[in-house]
């Protein structure tokens, strides 16, 4: 009994001290001087732009990584080919490599002086210090989550349901849409939550590749840093709270897609 209580106390106090308390303090501080300053902070053009850019980048990264993630999971689980182990290892690269290194790598590849960067610049496409670069960096760091969540689910459901659909006359696409996709829905949903959280929270890679141009290439996380460095604590807290709220909303939204009474 005492052992169980100790364990529970340990787990809960760990969470309380390191998670709930700091986030709670930010919330409290944000509204310390009432709603007025908060509203002012949100409606600043730079803040609104940062919010919009963050949502845009996250939306593109999540959409891309979800489609790619599901395809990649199917290839990993259902196909057999040479180099499968390599693919599997490469997929974890974004988790292993520091985001700062990712930013630097993109800078080297797409910078004006590089081959690719020079070629793109001639075509009038600017990657570094603009939205495309931020999107590339965000996709890179948030890539593995959907794959990693979908692979075990796909493995668990096996191939029999899909074979049954085939014998009933369903085409490959119909089978995927009507049988496979609904079966892996919970895995996809959780993968999307993690991808979104990672995408909106990314700082390191984006801070290098974006150039941190206020009102142009600042995402919310960069904006938080910017406000902090300018001693604008209300602006800093407000942006932080918005970041947290986006994450919570994603969690709630994906809960709607959780499987019904099935298991």
């Amino acid at each position, binding site marked *: 009994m005492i052992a169980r209580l100790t364990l529970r106390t340990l787990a809960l106090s760990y969470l309380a001290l390191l998670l709930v308390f700091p986030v709670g303090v930010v919330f409290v501080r944000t509204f310390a001087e009432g709603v007025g300053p908060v509203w002012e902070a949100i409606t600043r053009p730079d803040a609104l732009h940062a919010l919009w850019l963050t949502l845009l980048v996250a939306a593109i990264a999540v959409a891309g990584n979800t489609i790619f993630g599901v395809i990649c999971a199917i290839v990993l689980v259902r196909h057999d080919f040479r180099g499968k182990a390599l693919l599997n290892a490469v997929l974890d690269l974004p988790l292993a490599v520091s985001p700062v290194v990712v930013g630097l790598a993109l800078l080297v590849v797409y910078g004006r002086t590089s081959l690719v960067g020079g070629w793109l610049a001639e075509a009038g496409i600017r990657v570094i210090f603009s939205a495309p670069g931020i999107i590339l960096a965000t996709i890179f760091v948030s890539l593995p989550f959907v794959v990693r969540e979908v692979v075990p689910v796909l493995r668990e459901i096996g191939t*029999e349901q899909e074979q049954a659909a085939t014998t009933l006359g369903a085409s490959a696409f119909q089978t995927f849409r009507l049988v496979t996709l609904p079966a892996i829905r919970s895995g996809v949903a959780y993968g999307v939550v993690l991808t979104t959280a990672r995408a909106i929270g990314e700082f390191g890679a984006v801070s290098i590749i974006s150039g941190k141009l206020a009102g142009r290439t600042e995402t919310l996380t960069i904006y938080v840093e910017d406000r902090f460095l300018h001693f604008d604590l209300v602006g800093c807290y407000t942006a932080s709270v918005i970041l947290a709220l986006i994450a919570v909303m994603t969690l709630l939204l994906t809960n709607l897609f959780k499987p019904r009474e099935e298991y």
Partner: protein
Amino acid sequence: MTITVREVSKRFGNFVALDDVSVEAPAGSLTALLGPSGSGKSTLLRVIAGLEKPDSGKIFISDEEKTQTPAQKRGVGFVFQHYAAFKHMNVFENVAFGLKIRKRSKAEIRKRVSELLELVQLDGFANRYPAQLSGGQRQRMALARALAVQPEVLLLDEPFGALDARVRQELRGWLKRLHEEIEVTTILVTHDQEEAMEVADRIVLMNHGKIEQVGGPQDLYENPANEFVMGFIGPVNRLGDTFVRPHDVEIQLHEDGTTSEATVDHFVYLGFEVRVELTLSDGQQLWAQVTREEAWHLGLERGKTVHVRIGHSKVFGQSVEGSLPQS
């Protein structure tokens, strides 16, 4: 809708699953593919369904070659051992799946599904999810789903293998009646000889990717083509080159010139049947199956000396009637 398999071979790496197999399932028949695990029976069924591609050979369904036809267009109903229920769909949606793919009208789907649910005795379960059904109910739902699209042939892969003994027994009888009602050519894969004999009108006995014998249940039991068939299709004693069924071992109290002496080692009451384990005077062991009346009449007890006559036995190559085993 006759199903014809002609000279089909299939390997998985070095493992030969099917070795030049030719077999036919006549229109309207219920054929059992029987054999031990690894004998190739499931592979043969999957080749017929188009779920597996043969390395060589041809598949015909009612004289039409289907070897290259994908499973999607083959018009077979397939039932899996572990049901393969669509877990996120309720019973109605599961059964309606094939009809929806074929773009039938809502009214027609509703009518057909309710007919089928009645046929498989699941009316009233339309809104349940597979997780809320028992194993037997799930398998009946899977059968209704396969029948919904009016398949030319029905293929069942160990359909009762995952169910407990009582439900299995119940569903066997039910499947046989259902088959009589709808008369669709049916092939059933099983490793259980009793199930094959009870349900099927024809048995194809397989071993190591080859067919050992094809025939009716009685045919296989009475006239096994070889040792393997005799041993697989029922219990058997082996005395030297001679094979004898335990119920063909007669026990009597007195010697009469056609008998040989034996000692009772052990006996087990199994209700109607009593199993008697014996050692012959030359040291060979065998067991006999007698009724409880016979056992009572013989006054069996351990160590008792009795006299044994072999009623009907087999030496492969020839059939021996009423002679004593020579070892």
